[in-house]
Each structure stands twice: as structure tokens, then as C-alpha cells.
């Protein structure tokens, strides 16, 4: 089967699903809608698997399948054509998107059984997958941008899915607007790149960038540097980094599978994927890399602190996503492109798992999201709690699980890379510790400990269609780590399992040059991080299971700090106060003075003038026959006099 | 130009003669006392019933209109009649006859229609 057919099916299957469901919005039959959507995603999953297999079969050097459908825009030198490419990086991404997507589709069939608009939901979900595939497979920045926007749209549609609820609709709006700000940055970045290289294809961009980098360091005002900064702003918008992260916690207003798919596995990783895609371009601008690393580290630490004080299960997971993304950007910032991709994949598995788990918990608890009203769900929901525990172990980085390998690799690169710095490593480790603390806190309050479930609700295990994806994701979050075992660990393991992922991605990515250190240093660093994680985990366990009064004492010890953190550092209020409200006031003022008084007045004057002329000529027609004859006579006389005079 | 003078002379002559006669009768006749009876219109001696606005039949003006139209069609025939002899001698007698045939046909149609539509039916 030739490539273009495969690509076509891969891309068009979700579209077909979208159209099928889209045209029957009002239909309440969720089974049919869900089935069709899942089948569509299944088909594209199979296509992507086939593609990856073909890719693997190709020789290592030129591992890329390129397909060109038609040249989309061809204007005086600038041409962007609808062409797609699958190479090592995008292979992983499409597998993750379609794979995780498929599982989430299956999960949401059960989840959306009570909803009255299932087909609309599935239509949006399919559209989202299509756009995500566009973003990932596009061979030039413009196609990526189209996907970028599409994804933003779908996230808005899905977050505000229950738009009847004012607050949820506002959350959708907020997500969309913040994304738009990021997209603006992304667009500027594309322009700068075009200005610099007059092409927007990734392959040519990367080669040109490396030649440019070879010719010496670039100043701050160099277009390439500016491009990187703007692109990074775009990435922040999409992947919720420091300035533009505010939308992600509120995005929890959407259905949980949405959060799982969009705000854990795929969309939020788009920023990371973009930077990894343009790794050589970023390598040419080291100063931007440091900015990214610093922002990534801060976001990781900062989000983790907020995560500790939250009571809503989904909010905790949201902040944990923000902090994990912070780790990925930290990795990318220090040049650890391969570990960042690795962490991205593993994070996709265990975060999707946890979200779905929380989904089934909420589903079981009758839409109750406050963990203070949960507890001891282990007995009521064995499968969910078991798989959730696997995810917990992965995320805090217990050795042997996927989270450990990827996060540790990033921390090692932070320490070892010339780009990185010791302080960043320390921040990273502290972040990891706090992650361990709030995740354990979550586990204690939800699954272990005493049951604080109110009388009305009786938690029960979710049906098979919801638990099956949980199991698969559980296995993946464990197994996912083994394909990218760092060499230092593989050295001591029997059989020296090779770093498959590393070899796979190595030709396509740039890598930071690490300072040579002995294995001992690496082991010791690993030891420190594991011990920090263990201590904070134990501390959380004791605080929330054994002696439950510790949290109150901490709160009383630092009341103001706790209040501040609880209210998410009043970031939202800051934004509203400083930016949004003044903007509204200005526009209201403009409306009153300029529009109402000036522009309207003008139009009224014009219309009155025309009306008066109309009335003037109207009076000419008074039915008197002779008057008409007189007008004719006058006309003739005037005309003749002109002829004679002229 | 000469004929115009002759016509004008003739018309003035006749008009003067007429005026002379009318003037003569007025002057020579006995002086008349205008009495209401004399002024009233002569109705064979029967008392005059002035019936106000007389119902004038519209038929007459229709005759006049049809007269105008058919008169013009006749007048269109005069130049044809005059030049028909020469047309024949010059050789295009046939075409002229044909053209005139069409014209006369239209005339006949008008006539037939007018007869059939009983436009000139006198009560």
C-alpha cells in the first residue's frame, strides 16, 4: 500500500468520524457515536503502526516517509504545500496520539453514557485527533500552525462542552484566549524564521540553522533568536508554562477523558514537540535555551507548591501536569531533547492513566471531585485503585517504573549538560520531592485511610469499558520506561538492554554535549534524588494516614504562606486587575465617545440628507399633465441652448 | 405661386359675396323686436321642451374616426394609382402591384372587421 494512501486514511479517518457524528448532533445513541469514533481512531492507529513498521524497515540514515498532496500556497517565492512527513520523532508522537486517543475514546463511551450530547462530544474528540495529527505530521511550520490552531479550537469546544453552565463556558473562553496569545507568538516566530531563512520546512530549517550556528554566536536582535523566543512564547501558551499556564487548571471544567487526552497526553505536549522538532534551530540560540530551562524549572517547582494545597482531585492532577511539563521544558532547555521526548511519552501514559482513574472515581462518586469527601476507595474500586497506584509509582519516579527513567535522565542532563547548571538540578530535585509529597497525599486521601464518603453515595467499580483502558495504561506506564534505559543503569543490568529510544531518536535530534563525568557521580546524583523522593513520600504518608493532625499544625505554622499558595498566588486576580479590566474600561470609553457620538451622527446626517432630496423631487410628480409637458419643454430648451452655445 | 394668388382671389371674392348677401338681408329686412318666443328654437309650433343636456349618440364620432382612418388609406392609394402606369412601363409593375396588394389586403381586413364588429350599426 503506497504511502500517500496510508497518510490519507490516517488523516481522513478522524475526519470521517467527525462528519458522521457531527451531522447527527441531537442523536442520543452514545453507543453508536462512541463506536464509530473509536473505530475511526482505531483505523488511524493501525495506519500509524504500519507506517512506523515501514519506518523501522528503512535504513537508519534516511528514516522519513515524505508525502506531498498538493502545493497549498504558492505566492512569489513563498510556498507552503500540503505535505506530510513521518520520521523518528513524529512516529512516537502519532503512536502516542492515536494509541492513547483510542484508549480514551473507549473509556469515554462509558463515561458519556448519561450525557445528552454524546455524538457532539465524539465529533469534537475526533476533530481534535485530526488536528493533533496535522500538527505532528506537517512537514512545514504552516501545516503545524493549522494543526496548532485546530487543537486550540477543539480544546475550547471540549472544555466548554457543557456550555450551559456559565462557569464552564468561561473556562473554555479563558483557555482559548490564552492559547490565542501563545499562537500569536508562534506566528511571529514563523515570520521571523521565514525572514531569516525564507523557507518554513523543518528539514531545510534545521540544516540552515546548523550552518548559521557554525558561523558563531548570534546577538539578541538576530531574527533567529527572536524567532526562537517567539516560538517559545507559543509553546508556553500551548503547554501552559509560567506566564500562560492559568488556563490549564480551569480547563478541568471539561469532561475528564478530555482532560486526560488533551491536558495530559497530547495537546499540552505540542509545545515540547515543536521545540524538539526545531532542536537544531534552538541549538543555534543557546541563550534562548537557558531561558527555556529557567522557565521550565520555575514552572515545575512553582506548580508543585500549588499542587500540594489543592483539594479538588482534578486540580491536583492539572498542577502536576504543569510541573511535569516544566520538567520537559527544563530538559529541552538544557539540550536533553531525547530525554524530554522520553519523559513526554512516559508522562502521557501515567498522566492519562491517573486522569482516567480520577474520571472513574468521580464517575463512581456521582460527580464528586473533592478528595476530602473520599477515602478508602481501595476496597470499593480495586482495579481503579490498583492501576492508580501503578501511575503513582511511575510519576514519583520509583526506580523500575517509567517515570523514574525519564525524569532521572532529565535531571542528569540538567546537571551534566554545559547548558544546565547545578542550581537547576537542585530545583528539579526539590520539585520531584514535592511531586512525591502531593501524589502520596492524593493516594492517602482517596484510596487508603478512613472512608469519608457521605452516606448518599456508594462508590462502585466502573464498568469494563472504563477499566480496560486503565489496565492497558497501567501496563504501559510500567513498561514504557524500559525502552529508554539510560546507559549507566543498563551497564549494571543483566543483558545490558540497549537504550532503544535513544538509538531511535539520535539521528533526528541535536544533543547537548555533556561534560564527561564518572559513573560514580551519576549514581550518587540518582541516589540523592531517590532518597528525597522517599523521604517526602513517607512524610506525606504519615501526615495523612498515621497522624492526621500534622497538616493542621503546618497550616497554623505558616498561615499566610498557606493562604497564598491555596489561592494560587492570586495570579488570576493579578491578570484581571492589571490587564483585562483596564482593557474593558478603555473599550467601553471608546464605544461611548467615538462610536455613539461621532460615527452614528455621521450616518444619520447622510441618511437625513438623502431623505430630504427624495421629498424634494417627490413634489415634482403632482399628477398635473401640463407640468410634465413644461418640464419636457424646459429640458429641450436647455439642451438646444447647449448645442447652440457649444 | 400664380395658382395661390388665384385661389386666394377666388376665396376672398366668394367670401365678400356671401358677407354682402348676409349684410344685405340684415340691413334690408324689417327691424326685429327680439322677443323670447322669436328667439326660441322652431319646433313646428309645438311648445319647446328644452330637455337640458341632450343625450348625444356617441355613434357619430366613431363614424368620423373610421372615416379618417379609411380616408388616409385611400389617400395612400393615390400616389400608387398615379405612378402605376409608369411603374409598369419601367418594368417593376409586378413588385408595386404586390406591395399594393398587401396594403389593400390590410384595408380589406380593416373593412371586414369593422363590418363584422357592427361598429356602425344604426339603431
Amino acid at each position, binding site marked *: 500500500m503506497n504511502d500517500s494512501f496510508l497518510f490519507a486514511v490516517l488523516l481522513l479517518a478522524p475526519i470521517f468520524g467527525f462528519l458522521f457524528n457531527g451531522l447527527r448532533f441531537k442523536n442520543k445513541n452514545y453507543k453508536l457515536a462512541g463506536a464509530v469514533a473509536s473505530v475511526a481512531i482505531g483505523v488511524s492507529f493501525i495506519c500509524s503502526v504500519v507506517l512506523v513498521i515501514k519506518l523501522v524497515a528503512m535504513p537508519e540514515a534516511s528514516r522519513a516517509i515524505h508525502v506531498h498532496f498538493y502545493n497549498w500556497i504558492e505566492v512569489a517565492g513563498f510556498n507552503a504545500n500540503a505535505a506530510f512527513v513521518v520520521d523518528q520523532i513524529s512516529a512516537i508522537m502519532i503512536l502516542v496520539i492515536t494509541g492513547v486517543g483510542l484508549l480514551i475514546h473507549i473509556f469515554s463511551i462509558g463515561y458519556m453514557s448519561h450525557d445528552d450530547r454524546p455524538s457532539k462530544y465524539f465529533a469534537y474528540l475526533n476533530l481534535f485527533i485530526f488536528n493533533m495529527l496535522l500538527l505532528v505530521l506537517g512537514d512545514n511550520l504552516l501545516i503545524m500552525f493549522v494543526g496548532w490552531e485546530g487543537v486550540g479550537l477543539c480544546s475550547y469546544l471540549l472544555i466548554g462542552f457543557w456550555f450551559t453552565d456559565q462557569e464552564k463556558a468561561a473556562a473554555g473562553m479563558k483557555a482559548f484566549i490564552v492559547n490565542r496569545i501563545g499562537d500569536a507568538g508562534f506566528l511571529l516566530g514563523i515570520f521571523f524564521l521565514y525572514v531569516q531563512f525564507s523557507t518554513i520546512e523543518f528539514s531545510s530549517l534545521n540544516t540552515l540553522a546548523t550552518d548559521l550556528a557554525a558561523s558563531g554566536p548570534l546577538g539578541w536582535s538576530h531574527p533567529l533568536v527572536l524567532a526562537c523566543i517567539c516560538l517559545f512564547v507559543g509553546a508556553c501558551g500551548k503547554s501552559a508554562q509560567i506566564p500562560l499556564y492559568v488556563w490549564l487548571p480551569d480547563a478541568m471544567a471539561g469532561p475528564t477523558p478530555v482532560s486526560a487526552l488533551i491536558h495530559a497526553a497530547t495537546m499540552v505536549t505540542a509545545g515540547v514537540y515543536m521545540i524538539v522538532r526545531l532542536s537544531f534551530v534552538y541549538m543555534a540560540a543557546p541563550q534562548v535555551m537557558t531561558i527555556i530551562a529557567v522557565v521550565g524549572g520555575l514552572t515545575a517547582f512553582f506548580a508543585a507548591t500549588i499542587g500540594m494545597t489543592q483539594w479538588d482531585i482534578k486540580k491536583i492532577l492539572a498542577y502536576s501536569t504543569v510541573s511535569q511539563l516544566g520538567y520537559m521544558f527544563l530538559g529541552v532547555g538544557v539540550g536533553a531533547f531525547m530525554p524530554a521526548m522520553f519523559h513526554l511519552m512516559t508522562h502521557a501514559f501515567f498522566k492519562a492513566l491517573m486522569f482516567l482513574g480520577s474520571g472513574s472515581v468521580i464517575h463512581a462518586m456521582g460527580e464528586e471531585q473533592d478528595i476530602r469527601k473520599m477515602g478508602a476507595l481501595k476496597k470499593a474500586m480495586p482495579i481503579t485503585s490498583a492501576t492508580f497506584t501503578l501511575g503513582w509509582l511511575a510519576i514519583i519516579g520509583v526506580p523500575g517504573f517509567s517515570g523514574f527513567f525519564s525524569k532521572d535522565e532529565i535531571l542528569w542532563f540538567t546537571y551534566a549538560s554545559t547548558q544546565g547548571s547545578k542550581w537547576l538540578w537542585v530545583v528539579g530535585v526539590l520539585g520531584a520531592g514535592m511531586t512525591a509529597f502531593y501524589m502520596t497525599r492524593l493516594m492517602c486521601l482517596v484510596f487508603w485511610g478512613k472512608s469519608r464518603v457521605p452516606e448518599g453515595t456508594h462508590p462502585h467499580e466502573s464498568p469494563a469499558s472504563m477499566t480496560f483502558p486503565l489496565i492497558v495504561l497501567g501496563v504501559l506506564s510500567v513498561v514504557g520506561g524500559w525502552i529508554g534505559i539510560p546507559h549507566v543503569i543498563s551497564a549494571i543490568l543483566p543483558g545490558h538492554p540497549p537504550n532503544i529510544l535513544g538509538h531511535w531518536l539520535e539521528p533526528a535530534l541535536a544533543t547537548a554535549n555533556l561534560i564527561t563525568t564518572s559513573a560514580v557521580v551519576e549514581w550518587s546524583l540518582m541516589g540523592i534524588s531517590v532518597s528525597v523522593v522517599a523521604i517526602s513520600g513517607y512524610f506525606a504518608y504519615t501526615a495523612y494516614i498515621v497522624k492526621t493532625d500534622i497538616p493542621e499544625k503546618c497550616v497554623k505554622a505558616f498561615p499566610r504562606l498557606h493562604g497564598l499558595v491555596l489561592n494560587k498566588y492570586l495570579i488570576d486576580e493579578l491578570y484581571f486587575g492589571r490587564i483585562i479590566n483596564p482593557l474593558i474600561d478603555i473599550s467601553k470609553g471608546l464605544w461611548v465617545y467615538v462610536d455613539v457620538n461621532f460615527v452614528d451622527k455621521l450616518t444619520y446626517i447622510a441618511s437625513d440628507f438623502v431623505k430630504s432630496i427624495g421629498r424634494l423631487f*417627490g*413634489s415634482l*410628480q*403632482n*399628477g*398635473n*399633465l*401640463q407640468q410634465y*409637458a*413644461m418640464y419636457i*419643454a424646459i429640458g429641450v430648451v436647455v439642451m438646444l441652448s447647449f448645442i447652440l452655445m457649444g | 405661386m400664380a395658382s395661390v394668388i388665384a385661389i386666394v382671389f377666388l376665396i376672398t371674392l366668394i367670401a365678400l359675396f356671401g358677407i354682402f348677401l348676409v349684410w344685405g338681408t340684415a340691413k334690408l329686412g324689417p327691424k326685429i323686436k327680439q322677443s323670447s318666443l322669436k328667439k326660441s328654437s322652431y319646433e313646428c309650433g309645438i311648445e319647446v321642451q328644452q330637455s337640458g343636456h341632450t343625450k348625444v349618440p*356617441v355613434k357619430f*364620432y366613431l363614424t368620423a*374616426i373610421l372615416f*379618417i*382612418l379609411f380616408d*388616409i388609406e385611400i389617400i*395612400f392609394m393615390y*400616389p400608387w394609382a398615379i405612378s402605376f402606369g409608369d411603374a409598369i412601363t419601367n418594368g417593376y409593375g409586378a413588385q408595386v402591384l404586390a406591395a399594393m396588394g398587401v396594403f389593400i389586403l390590410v384595408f380589406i381586413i380593416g373593412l371586414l372587421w369593422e363590418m363584422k364588429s357592427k361598429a356602425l350599426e344604426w339603431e
Partner: protein
Amino acid sequence: MLSSELLHIGLNHYLGLSAVIFVIGMLTVLLRRNLIVMLMGVELMLNAVNITFVAFSSFNQNMNGQVMVFFVMAIAAAEAAVGLALAVTIFKHYKEIDISAFEQLKS
């Protein structure tokens, strides 16, 4: 002093006469209120035009002018016929022939 130009009747004299009659006809149409007199005004204007036609045709020795007069007469007669037929129908309806009677077609 009868200048020779005035005595010798040229084309312009006839055109002058026709112009005068035309204007009088026009004024009749414009000024008189009685519909039938307006139609007479039209007849006057048409006759003035006929005079110009014949004047030009006889001064330029070209028969086209006369043929045109011939046709103008036919059309003028047809027009008068229809005009008066309409006048009669109007008279039947409005009982009076003054044009101020039928001014319904106004904005």
C-alpha cells in the same frame, strides 16, 4: 427701405413661420386646460413640422421631405383619432374635460 433680403423669400422665412406656429402650438399644449384644445395644439405643432419638411424638400429638390410629410400626416391623423377616442372615454368617466379633473397619478 424694403431690403432685398426681406423681399426675396428664402428658406429661412418658411422656417421662421414654422417656428412661430410650433411655439404657439407648444404654448397651447402647455397653457390650455381643455384636453381637446391640447390635442389641437399637438396638431399645430405637427403641421409646423410639416411646413419645415416641405420647405427643406422643395429648397433642396429632394422628395424625401415630402414623403416624410405624407407619413407624418398619416400618423398625426391616427394620433388624433386615438386621442379623441380616449378623450371621449375620459369624458364619460369624469363628466368633464378639464385636465385638473384627472390628477390621480401623483406621488
